[in-house]
């Protein structure tokens, strides 16, 4: 067997914070062969990103590589002098970063940015080219990432490009110097599903055409199936198991991998959960809702939306960013007013201090005040409904039991809690004043898939115990498939399709729905086969342009 391109052996890395040292990588060993596509998969804190940083050499200052070796094409990287190691960046391996907006300086044009990178890399190699030559090379690279109108892209500022286009430019940036190994850190995670799908296709295509190897870092098992030949599963800094992609996804041998696969909401197949439709009367009826932001020629965010929310159901409002789903939810909550249309609520008016609706935000990190303890956070709504003394205390304990958190957590600050625990606190706060309707604004988008599973289970139990009605806003269709009893798909402010979830998924009529479902990364080949087909013409008609 020939020498693998990248060989990581017995890598141990530890971090020191606040005078305490802890190991984040434990004897990590794996290889990436020439032309091979390997995925490092794991949840938050598994050490996958640290591994990538150790390879590239961008570990933070408080990290120490205590032992192990990283060999690139047979040469030991860790022993190299600094300059030599720097020279590997871009030429030997390149990194595609996660956030396409944060990677660009907003005051430079794309062309200037690319030109700078190219000029410095040339300088390092002791070559020099004229500006025109560099411009030609940049144009060639941009064409490689399917940005055909290179002139326009080069003269654009980062804010003038769509997220997908920026991600393409980032990939182009990584390709400037024909690297042998492409390291991709969660590419497209910050983008819509349909855009992410196209980005993954592009990476796949480029890896083959440029004869590169790929090291993909991701938390999404569906992405893994799409772009990897071999999978390395990481957990708590350890490698749990390694094997061919199909093998791991079909017959995982380790319990952790099994649990991880189990937590992924299925799109089709026997594991899919069907929620029964509610036969109760409607609680919210929306008729001809329009919302225009700005005065004259404003942005038409919501167009003629009609919607019925029945009591006790889980209604899903699906759509990509900018589709208007959040605007609809905010209008239902009374946080913003409709430009036209009516909302009729068929429920007794809530008592003083209480609200009919409450919301659980997407990111519990920003929806809990970092300077207030759980107790203080929960006291607020209880005080507003006039509870005090022993009654408040009893209700607070009851709420903590409801969201399955120990009562000792009441005195903790948000930074002492994990993401899932924080979201439970946010749910407890929303439930404190006994609302009838809970708006769930992508409640699990910021959480790991296994944590998502527990939070979703909790929400389903709560709905049964308390007889709540949920309005879930999300772009994650596979999650909605298993959580919502009815669903509506929004595109550019309009509802293009709605119906019972089972029906919409079994027989999507609108091409956009089909494109959306088809773009979801799934874990099994079976689900892939069952996805609806979308023609190229439909794709171009309804999806956001990511080329130009």
């Amino acid at each position, binding site marked *: 067997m020939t020498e693998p391109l990248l060989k990581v052996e017995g890598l141990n890395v530890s971090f020191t914070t606040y005078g305490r040292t802890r190991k984040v990588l434990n004897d990590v060993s794996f290889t990436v062969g020439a032309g091979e596509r390997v995925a490092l998969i794991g949840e938050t804190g598994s050490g996958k990103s640290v591994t990538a940083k150790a390879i590239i050499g961008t570990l933070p200052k408080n990290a120490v590589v205590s032992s192990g070796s990283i060999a690139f094409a047979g040469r030991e990287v860790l022993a190299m002098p600094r300059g030599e190691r720097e020279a590997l960046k871009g030429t030997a391996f390149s990194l595609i970063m996660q956030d396409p907006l944060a990677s660009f300086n907003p005051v430079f044009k794309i062309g200037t940015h690319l030109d700078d990178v190219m000029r410095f890399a040339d300088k390092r190699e002791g070559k020099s080219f004229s500006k025109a030559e560099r411009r030609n090379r940049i144009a060639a690279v941009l064409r490689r990432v399917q940005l055909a109108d290179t002139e326009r892209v080069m003269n654009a500022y980062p804010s003038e490009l769509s997220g997908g286009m920026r991600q393409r430019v980032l990939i182009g940036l990584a390709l400037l110097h024909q690297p042998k190994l492409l390291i991709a850190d969660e590419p497209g995670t910050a983008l819509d599903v349909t855009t992410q799908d196209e980005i993954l296709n592009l990476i796949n295509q480029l890896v083959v055409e440029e004869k590169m190897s790929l090291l993909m870092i991701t938390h999404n098992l569906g992405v893994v199936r799409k772009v990897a030949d071999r999978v390395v599963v990481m957990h708590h800094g350890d490698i749990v198991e390694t094997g061919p992609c199909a093998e791991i996804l079909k017959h995982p041998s380790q319990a952790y991998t099994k649990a991880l696969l189990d937590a992924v909401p299925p799109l089709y197949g026997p594991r899919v959960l069907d929620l029964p439709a509610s036969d109760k009367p409607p609680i919210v009826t929306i008729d001809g809702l329009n919302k225009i932001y700005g005065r004259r020629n404003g942005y038409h965010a919501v167009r003629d939306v009609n919607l019925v929310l029945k009591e006790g159901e889980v209604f899903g409002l699906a759509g990509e960013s900018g589709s208007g789903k959040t605007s609809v939810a905010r209008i239902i909550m009374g946080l913003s007013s409709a430009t036209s249309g009516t909302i009729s609520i068929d429920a007794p008016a809530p008592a003083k201090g209480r609200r009919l609706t409450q919301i659980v935000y997407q990111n519990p990190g920003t929806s809990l005040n970092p300077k207030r303890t759980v107790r203080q956070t929960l006291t607020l709504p209880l005080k507003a*409904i006039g509870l005090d003394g022993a009654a408040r205390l009893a209700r607070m304990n009851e709420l903590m039991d409801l969201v399955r958190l120990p009562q000792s957590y009441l005195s903790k600050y948000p930074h002492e809690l994990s993401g899932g625990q924080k979201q439970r606190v946010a749910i407890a706060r929303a439930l404190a004043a006994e609302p009838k309707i809970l708006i769930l604004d992508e409640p699990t988008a910021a959480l790991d898939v296994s944590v998502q599973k527990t939070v979703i289970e909790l929400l389903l139990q709560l709905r049964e115990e308390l007889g709540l009605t949920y309005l879930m806003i999300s772009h994650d269709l596979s999650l909605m498939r298993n959580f919502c009893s009815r669903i509506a798909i929004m595109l550019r402010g309009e509802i293009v399709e709605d119906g019972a979830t089972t029906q919409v998924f079994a027989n999507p009529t609108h091409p956009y729905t089909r494109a959306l479902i088809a773009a979801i990364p799934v874990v099994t080949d079976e689900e892939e086969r069952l996805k609806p087909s979308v023609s190229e013409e439909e794709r171009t008609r309804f999806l956001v342009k990511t080329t130009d």
Partner: protein
Amino acid sequence: MAEIKMLDASDRGLSGGYMMWYRFSRNPSAVIGTLILLSVVILAVFAPFLTPFPKHVGAVVDFRARHLPPDWTHWFGTDKVGRDIFSRTVFGLRISLLLVIGVLGISVPVGAILGLIAGYFGGWSEKLISGLTNVMLAMPPLVMALAVSNLLEPNLMNAMIAITLLWWTWHARLIYAVSKSIASEDYIEAARLAGAGPIHILFREILPNCIPVLSVKTTLDAAFVILFGATLSFLGFGVKPPIPDLGSMVADGRQFMPDYWWEVLCPGAAVLYTTLGFNLLGDGLRDMFDVES
């Protein structure tokens, strides 16, 4: 609930107080600044017991001892009427600290409250308050302070009033900017939905998040206030003689430069020492809180 334990769990187990102490103890400028300020405060508070000639604060005249250079009895030498400069300098620190407490004690709360109101409510309150601060900031501070203390009688109280009238604008502006960005956070909306009133939101939700910025700014400002106060009394608009003030002591000694250098240098060094303490602590706090200037 088998929630996947995250790796930074060890961080989470740490209390906020421990993390603060850890950062503080590993931050040389915060530690040195604190030590300097501690020594200044102790000297100022216990001045009557720590100084060799506490009576020299008043109108004592001893012409036999005038212009004595520093020695073991008079550590900082004596001035033109034979008073011990060390004793007077230590008592001068009292005046400086009183000035800091007086000025910042009024201008920080006033500025912070106005800033919070402008940042959270927006609308006309925002226009009014930010307009007012802009006008105030456009005036040259020294001229403004001179005008105020000229209108009133020159004494410590009026110097304080003059400086306070200017100083609140800086805090108002800073807190306005910070609270405006905090006001758009999800947790503020969540608090409103939970039934919180504006008073609760301003002082319980937004203000605690402004404390890091506010404490850094206040500490750095203390140094400015001391310098500003010293400038005013140097120009004769501050504390009335014979009460010792660092600024007026420098002004008094100025005419005897360079022969009797200690009369300027020693009170000047005290100003330097104190402002250095505040500046070091302010810088240290900024690093500890990780606040962008």
